[in-house]
């Protein structure tokens, strides 16, 4: 499985992204790496709470942590995010196709609709004179 190859379990990826703060953290660190303390200063919650969120994201393989001096730098792993979003996107494409074909069917002339309605075979043309 694609997400597994990225180092996270798919269910964990989706569970991790179900939280608004964690989605926000992922979006931030996808743009550029940030330390946990810098992240903590952005949210109205304790350092420990932010650290917990980061740990959930890390377990899901959505971010990775790197020690730089005394700080922990958090960066996003875009491949895992992309893999998670891709499956729903593909499924949406399938349905867009189906609805497009529904529209085409509904736009067909009424006479043909009537033929589709009845299960009887189409009338045989009159014999040529």
């Amino acid at each position, binding site marked *: *499985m*694609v*997400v597994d190859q990225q180092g996270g379990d*798919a*269910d964990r*990826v*989706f*569970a991790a*992204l*179900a939280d608004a703060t964690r989605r926000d953290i992922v979006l931030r660190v996808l743009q550029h790496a940030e330390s946990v303390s810098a992240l903590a200063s952005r949210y109205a919650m304790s350092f420990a709470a932010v650290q917990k969120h980061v740990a959930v994201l890390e377990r899901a393989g959505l971010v990775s942590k790197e020690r730089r001096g005394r700080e922990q730098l958090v960066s996003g792993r875009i491949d895992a995010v992309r893999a*998670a*979003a*891709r*499956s*729903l*996107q*593909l*499924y*949406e*494409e*399938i*349905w*867009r*196709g*189906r*609805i*497009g*074909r*529904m*529209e*085409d*069917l*509904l*736009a067909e002339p009424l006479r043909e*609709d009537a033929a*589709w*309605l009845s*299960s009887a075979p189409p009338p045989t043309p009159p014999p040529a004179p």
Partner: protein
Amino acid sequence: MAVISTTPDPSARTLTLVAELAAPPARVWQLWSDPRQLERWWGPPTWPATFVEHDLVAGGGSRYRMTGPDGEQAHGWWSVLAVDEPRSLELEDGFADEAGQPVPDLPTTRMRVRLEEAGAGSTRMTLVSEFATVEQMEQLTQMGMVEGLTLAMGQMDELLAA
């Protein structure tokens, strides 16, 4: 555009799709209930569907096959959970083997369809697809990649013809 909104919800494993169709609910219902109409939209043109069984009543079900460009076949089944003609429909869609028997290891999707009058003889169709697990969701879309690709090609054809 017929599709008004699409709302993927990864945490609930659902995709909600709202479309507006230019026909009253009773007419749109036929697209689901009449197997000959159903098979004209369920599979993409390159993988047309043939419904060999179709009983759209609660407790009923369907069997269908889709045939690919090289003659390869994919078999599927529906299990109808609830029917309120022409307002709502709930069913499960899964894969079957060549004999039409459900394959338990392959993904199933639960679909809830709601049809509402949207004025001027049109219908608002809300479709909620729900996957049992994320793994199933990924598996299914990987299998459905064929459809996605053929769809994209079809759109290219349209653009070229325009």
